[in-house]
């Protein structure tokens, strides 16, 4: 190494730094190529980490000092559980029961807020509260001062009356609240007025949900939210000084005293659940980022390989002067490293900016599914940034390996002429193409196996192999296409076509890499567009089939798009009695877990579906018949994502958690459901209510009598509910529009990512063409000597660009088509459990591809102009 250093340093200037300084634009383009890939990956990971950390913060703050948290697998923990657990108090542990609910504050469309109903006497042992009074600050719970803690707890409870709530200072400020202010809360379709009894400092539990949390008395919360006799969680504060073994034993004993359908574990496990929920989403987006990074890799390869080619003579000279192979190799590797460092640094910066967009996407999904009140803020995790940076640097160094090796192989006499270097490369065309074909065959084979731990790993590998296989076919494709430029094209387009052909094959190693990079970016765009387009069409068709009712009612749910809370039975009765309403179908559901994986247990009126047949079945059987039979036999219907996720088939039995132990229900059929990927087990309402003591509905579908328009129906229903219940009434048309709007919003970032990758690929064509024109200055000068006009020289470069662009488009469409098959039938299905029918968005594709072709030609105008303005005499003098 010591011998290498001075050599390395003296070579860096002439071989790397000075040429790079001369060719700044190309180096900037290369750096931007890496930056995009790194940015994508950084953004997605940052957004994901932010959502998770905001969620785990909430989990931590709410859990407070609890060592064990008891949660229900089903709709709640029976209150008697507290008695069953009374023994833990005798060993020094404390039980802090709580109700958790989500409400809209102020009005039906107000800020979404978490409500925690607590037992003021017990809660101070688990959670910390600090009052922010006008003048004095009083800390309610002081660690280690049991007596004082209890005394203050009494103080805390005295604040609690039936209609009192404690708010956080953040929330109070946002809503201009002071002690004594009235606060309207809408929960479960009913608006209630509370009084602010105190404002809490952002300490302990008051920090949960970014301060969007209220505290009220447990009994009051049970009554207000229709949860009398039930609890949502019990936090157990363990006695101090427990060893890990004791703690595990303690946890085991607690578990033994729990009723069925209830689980005990460390509070963190809920974060894992959310992680699992957003994992498929994150992995899919990360894969997109990896493809972008791959395009960046091609950039580095191309730039360095052009550098090596252009500096062959210089390399030969320094080798003749005694520079070792190793130092030449190191110098070019260092160039790759430098490109990687600059590109990755820019990428990390760009990624932070992009992360805000990605946060809306990932965050939106997580909050809609799980925590409507969360406001995940961007958390710049240094580890995530470091990971993205390292990935960018590693890939550029990796792509610098081949050109660096080639540089090291340049012999000191530099006797090999340019043409023969390319000739050697041309001879590799066939073996490369054969390898490409083998990879494509492998890609096909890898699309067949199932998921690995719920993730479509083989699917991703298959996409990766398609990309690699097609890239290896690029030289063969360029050769094939170039040959077509002679013959008939020669007569049609003149000698410029032959010049373009000669340049394409003459610089095959460069042109084919440009084609491969463009192909890759286009394949990514085409496949994602086809996937999203297919998905959208499938969802639109499904929505029009399933949304057979005229009106849809949900509990008012504040600003968040997600609905939560339940519509009370009384409200449903009111709706049923409205003049013009024919039928109502209440859908009631709650979240449950199976082996720690969340899913939904729902219920509807099977008779309603049997009558209207509006829920398509996966196997194409008659919905009416299957639902009628299921109704008669008390059987369940499951959604397709549930069937996929838990590998359940028609005729299998599913176990559902109830207070009396698991209920075994036979599956009568599988229905298509694109509304969520958690998976749902649906029972008839009567059957459901026999198993769980739940009333009301999450949503209510309303069929109007003939002759009543949806708008008129909505007006009448709203009028009937006015002043009594805060419900959201949507017509069929509005809901359909809403569904598609949510859909489009979800995929908006995807399109943004694609657009960026595509722009970079077009810049890649510009990059390659500029390099080729600079490299061919002498040849261009010669053409001018032979009497070719500047316009013809320009045209030849444009034809070359058109050929690269056209080839990229054709190969991009073909490989994108193949990738979309894998995305739709393998990756999407294994990640989310949805069957999607292929629908290519032809209009969009045609427009996008046309645009790419135009952009490529536009990008070519600069190098073409450069070629046209070549100083003939000067160019010929260069040797």
């Amino acid at each position, binding site marked *: 190494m010591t011998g290498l250093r001075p050599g390395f340093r003296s070579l860096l200037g002439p071989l790397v730094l000075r040429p790079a300084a001369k060719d700044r634009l190309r180096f900037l383009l290369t750096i931007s190529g890496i930056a995009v890939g790194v940015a994508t990956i950084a953004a997605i990971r940052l957004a994901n980490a932010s959502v998770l950390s905001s969620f785990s913060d909430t989990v931590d703050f709410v859990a407070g000092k609890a060592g064990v948290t008891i949660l229900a697998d089903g709709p709640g923990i029976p209150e008697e559980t507290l008695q069953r657990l009374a023994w833990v108090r005798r060993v020094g542990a404390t039980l802090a029961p709580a109700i958790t609910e989500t409400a809209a504050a102020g009005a039906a469309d107000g800020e979404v807020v978490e409500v925690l109903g607590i037992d003021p006497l017990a809660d101070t042992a688990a959670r910390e509260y600090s009052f922010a009074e006008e003048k004095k600050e009083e800390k309610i719970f002081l660690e280690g001062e049991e007596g004082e803690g209890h005394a203050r707890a009494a103080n805390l409870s005295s604040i609690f009356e039936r209609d009192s709530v404690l708010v956080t200072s953040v929330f109070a400020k946002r809503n201009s609240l002071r002690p004594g202010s009235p606060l309207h809360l809408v929960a479960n379709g009913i608006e209630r007025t509370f009084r602010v009894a105190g404002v809490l400092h952002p300490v302990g539990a008051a920090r949960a949900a970014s301060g969007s949390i209220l505290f009220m008395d447990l009994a009051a919360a049970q009554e207000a939210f229709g949860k009398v006799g039930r609890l949502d969680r019990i936090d157990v504060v363990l006695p101090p000084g427990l060893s890990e073994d004791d703690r595990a034993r303690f946890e085991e004993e607690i578990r033994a005293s729990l009723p069925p359908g209830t689980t005990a574990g460390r509070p963190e496990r809920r974060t894992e659940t959310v992680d699992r929920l957003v994992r498929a989403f994150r992995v899919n987006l990360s894969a997109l980022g990896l493809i972008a990074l791959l395009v960046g890799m091609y950039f580095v390869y191309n730039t360095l390989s052009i550098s090596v080619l252009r500096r062959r003579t210089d390399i030969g000279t320094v080798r003749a002067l005694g520079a070792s192979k190793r130092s030449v190799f190191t110098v070019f590797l260092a160039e790759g490293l430098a490109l990687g460092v600059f590109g990755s640094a820019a990428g990390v910066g760009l990624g932070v900016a992009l992360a805000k967009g990605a946060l809306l996407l990932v965050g939106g999904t997580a909050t809609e599914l799980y925590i409507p009140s969360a406001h995940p803020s961007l958390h710049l995790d240094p580890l995530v940034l470091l990971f993205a940076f390292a990935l960018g640097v590693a890939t550029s160094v990796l792509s610098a390996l081949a050109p660096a090796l080639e540089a090291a192989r340049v012999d000191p006499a530099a006797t090999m*002429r340019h043409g023969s270097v390319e000739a050697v490369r041309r001879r590799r065309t066939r073996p490369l193409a054969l390898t490409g074909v083998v990879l494509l065959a492998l890609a096909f084979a890898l699309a067949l196996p199932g998921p690995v731990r719920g993730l479509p790993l083989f699917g991703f590998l298959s996409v990766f192999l398609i990309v690699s296989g097609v890239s290896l076919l690029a030289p063969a494709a360029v050769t094939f296409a170039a040959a077509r430029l002679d013959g008939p094209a020669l007569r049609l387009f003149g000698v410029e076509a032959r010049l373009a052909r000669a340049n394409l094959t003459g610089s095959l190693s460069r042109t084919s890499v440009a084609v491969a990079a463009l192909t890759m970016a286009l394949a990514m765009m085409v496949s994602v567009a086809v996937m999203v387009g297919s998905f959208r069409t499938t969802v639109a068709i499904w929505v029009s089939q399933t949304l057979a009712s005229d009106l849809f009612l949900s509990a008012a749910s504040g600003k968040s798009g997600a609905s939560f809370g339940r519509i009370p039975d009384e409200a449903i009765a009111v709706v049923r009695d409205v003049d013009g309403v024919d039928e109502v179908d209440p859908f009631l559901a709650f979240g449950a877990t199976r082996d720690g994986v969340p899913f939904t247990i729902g219920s509807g009126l099977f008779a309603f579906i049997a009558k209207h047949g509006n829920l398509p079945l996966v196997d194409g059987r008659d919905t009416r018949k299957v639902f009628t039979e299921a109704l008669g036999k008390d059987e369940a219907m499951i959604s397709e994502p549930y069937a996929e996720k838990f590998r359940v088939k028609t005729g299998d039995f599913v176990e559902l958690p109830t207070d009396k132990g698991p209920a075994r229900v036979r599956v009568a059929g599988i229905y298509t459901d694109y509304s969520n990927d958690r998976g749902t087990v649906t029972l008839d309402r009567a059957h459901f209510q026999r198993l769980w003591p739940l009333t009301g509905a999450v949503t209510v579908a309303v069929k109007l009598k003939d002759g009543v328009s949806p708008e008129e129906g909505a007006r009448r229903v709203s009028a009937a509910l006015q002043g009594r219940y805060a419900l959201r009434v949507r017509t069929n048309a509005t809901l359909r529009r809403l569904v598609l709007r949510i859909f489009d919003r979800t995929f908006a970032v995807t399109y943004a990512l694609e657009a960026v990758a595509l722009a970079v690929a077009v810049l890649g064509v510009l990059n390659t063409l500029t390099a080729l024109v600079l490299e061919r200055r002498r040849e261009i000068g010669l053409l001018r000597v*032979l009497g070719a006009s500047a316009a013809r020289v320009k045209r030849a470069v444009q034809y070359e660009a058109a050929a690269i662009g056209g080839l990229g488009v054709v190969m991009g469409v073909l490989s994108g088509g193949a990738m979309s098959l894998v995305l739709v039938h393998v990756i999407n299905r294994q990640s989310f459990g949805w069957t999607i029918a292929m629908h290519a968005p032809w209009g969009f594709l045609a427009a996008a591809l046309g645009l790419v072709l135009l952009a490529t030609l536009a990008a070519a105008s600069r190098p073409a102009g450069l070629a046209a303005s070549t100083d003939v005499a000067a160019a*010929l003098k260069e040797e």
Partner: protein
Amino acid sequence: MGARVTADSVSKSYGGGGGGGDESRAAGVDALAGISLTLEPGSFTALLGPSGCGKSTLLNLLGALDRPTGGRILVDGRDLATLGEDERDAYRRKTAATIFQFFNLLPTMNALENVALPLLLDGAAPAEADARAASLLAEVGLHGKERAYPYELSGGQMQRVAVARALANRPTLLLADEPTGNLDSKTGTQVLDLVSGLVQERGITVVMATHSVEASARASRVVRLLDGQLLP
């Protein structure tokens, strides 16, 4: 019939900025300083002189690759300075052909395509261009090498392809810039034999820049250049 070429007080200076005037000229380098010369049709003239004497500059001016800063060049009575860009392109395609020391073949095209290129540039039909290129290659003794790429040919063979290419559009003026400078003496002699034979057959006017006395001996007239001026 070869071209009649007249250079009338031709000068060329490089650098010195665009301001014009005596100062700038003084700052620049005078590559040619008022050269007057007449080349009869079908003559073979050697421009003899050391490197930097202005040989290549003169050839570039004769080939309409560059414009003189003073004086004028008439080819068959036409002043090259009056030609527009398109006319200059056409002049290089049809009238003045060039061969170089480093052959300057397009490395991305085979021998046949290199020779056919000027024909195609001049609008010949592809089949016709290929046929003429093949016959020219046969004439320079490269029958069977039509598909060979430049890197597969020896220096002498490459220069033969360059000669064939130069003759493709039946020029009346052939400008040869050190055509043997990159060849061993035996091959150089062969190439010179070829060139003088072919041009005599066709009556083409030839101007060859060289620093080799031996090579210049092949010419019917030797003009000596030194520091941009003709030696008497």
